[in-house]
């Protein structure tokens, strides 16, 4: 890292300019802050600053009962609420040895995959905006809005659902759920295809993204990248295949991978993942059995035995892990989350080396961070 130039610069000595990007910058996806050392338009060094959205979620979890913690998990990665709820519920269920009703598992998978689509749609939208295209964002938000109104019909809320319960679900799906999904899927497919056609292979978009901030497989593994960021490097690693949880082993789907690990591949992998998620939703709808979805706990509060557990799952952003320590009371003793956004963000310094100022927003966008999860 170079020193911060201080004082009055005279005699035309070339110095690097210190450019502060964020936390109020429109393209830092929330309240992320980067201090850029720029040489003209070239970025020579970058120092990320996080913590502007720190709410102490992990500590708050220690003060909440197990069924209340779900609401906190909704608010960590606020673009993939169902996925977060799933991994927390799975952790407590594993510790308690609960079995989830089969229908509930299928409902969880359907909702999680729809949420993955919604999250990736938002990624494509912001990717377009970062690159300067405004229409894809509108197309993607349209699709996301459709998914969210489905979520509203199912759980009563568009984003902070609080729908999964430890050992099951809050209530069964609405009666016309399958018709709603049947209506949704073609529209969603059309929206994704429209944004895909408009953006992915556009020459200017390719010029902006292809070859920018490429990362090798070794580096990616060293930085602990997971999810689409890792798969963009060509690593065929998806927890839904590698370590199937819930009922993911019963579906046919592919794991799209990239070639170079650059920004364009990260975009492409996510677009392809949306199609795969749609396949999973369609299969799950067919396979979904009838039956009970509520927890076998009934109306009793969950109180896991003493012990600790680590559960991981594939979030839209990568591998999320929950490490839960219980001391036998009705509140977690300690809860630690391995947030995918945070680990992916750790590579930003490596990625932004020798890029342009205009690339910083694109690279940051391609990592698809959610500051609610980074800062927790």
């Amino acid at each position: 890292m170079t020193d911060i130039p201080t004082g009055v610069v005279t005699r035309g000595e070339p110095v690097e300019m210190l450019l502060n990007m964020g936390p109020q910058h429109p393209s830092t996806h929330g309240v992320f802050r980067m201090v850029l050392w720029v040489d003209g338009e070239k970025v020579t060094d970058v120092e990320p600053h996080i913590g502007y959205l720190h709410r102490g979620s992990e500590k708050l979890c220690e003060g909440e009962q197990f069924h209340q913690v779900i609401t906190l998990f909704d608010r960590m990665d606020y673009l993939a609420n169902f996925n977060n709820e799933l991994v927390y519920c799975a952790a407590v269920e594993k510790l308690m040895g609960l079995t989830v009703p089969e229908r509930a598992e299928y409902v969880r998978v359907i909702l999680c995959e729809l949420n993955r689509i919604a999250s990736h749609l938002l990624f494509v939208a912001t990717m377009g905006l970062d690159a300067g295209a405004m229409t894809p964002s509108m197309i993607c938000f349209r699709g996301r809005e459709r998914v969210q109104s489905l979520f509203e019909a199912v759980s009563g809320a568009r984003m902070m659902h609080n729908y999964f319960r430890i050992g099951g679900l809050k209530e069964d799906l609405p009666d016309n759920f399958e018709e709603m999904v049947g209506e949704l899927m073609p529209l969603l497919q059309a929206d994704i295809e429209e944004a895909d056609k408009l953006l992915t292979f556009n020459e200017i978009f390719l010029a902006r993204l292809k070859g920018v901030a490429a990362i090798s497989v070794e580096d990616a593994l060293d930085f602990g990248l997971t999810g689409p960021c890792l798969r963009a490097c060509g690593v065929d690693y998806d927890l839904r295949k590698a370590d199937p949880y819930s009922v993911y082993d019963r579906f046919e789907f592919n794991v799209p991978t990239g070639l170079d690990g650059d920004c364009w591949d990260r975009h492409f992998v996510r677009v392809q993942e949306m199609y795969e998620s749609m396949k999973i939703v369609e299969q799950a709808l067919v396979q979904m059995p009838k039956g009970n979805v509520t927890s076998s706990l009934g109306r009793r509060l969950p109180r896991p035995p003493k012990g600790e557990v680590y559960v991981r799952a594939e979030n839209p952003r990568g591998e999320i892990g929950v490490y839960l320590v219980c001391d036998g009371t009705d509140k977690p003793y300690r809860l630690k989350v391995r947030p995918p956004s945070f680990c992916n963000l750790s590579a930003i310094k490596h990625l932004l080396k020798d890029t342009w100022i205009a690339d910083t927003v694109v690279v940051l966008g391609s990592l698809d961070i959610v500051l609610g999860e980074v800062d927790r």
Partner: protein
Amino acid sequence: MINSIKGLLLTLVSTMNGLRSPVTRQYPEKGTLWKREEAPTPVQDRFMGFPALTWDGEVDEPFCTSCMVCIRHCPTQCMTSTMKDNPLQQEGKSTRRKIVDSFEINLNRCILCGICVEVCNFDAIVMSHEHEMSTFQRNGDRVNLPVLLEIGTKFQRETGWIPPTKRAKPEPEAAPAVAGDGDTEGSESSS
């Protein structure tokens, strides 16, 4: 070049679609300036708006007995309440010994999670469909019992609400499983 031209054609088609059928719905009304049709976008049936208290029309009193279960289970501690002896019970009209005296919800703190509804044993609280409650006062979102009951009765009237305990159960609940010896709501609420 080719894909750029394809993109231009795509947006052209999109423009034609937009001229014909835009997806935006006007809020809260649709129609033109001259001809406005009242049609606010309806919320879904399960929509969770702000919590409200329900009114027992049979005995003409609130369902709520101020048992404090919802207050204890609220993740954000946004509610307070006090109870009193039920005058109607002394007259023999009601089976509730205690009744809610005051109830206050700070809607600024409420996170609309619906846990209070889930834990309530008396069908006394619902997530209403109310979602426009901005006020000009700093404490304007602290709603008290009459307002809560007003919202609740409005919700009951509009949706034909049936108390969950009186709804026909499709099938008996599964037997309680082994794990979890936590306290149940019943024991908590019998104070």
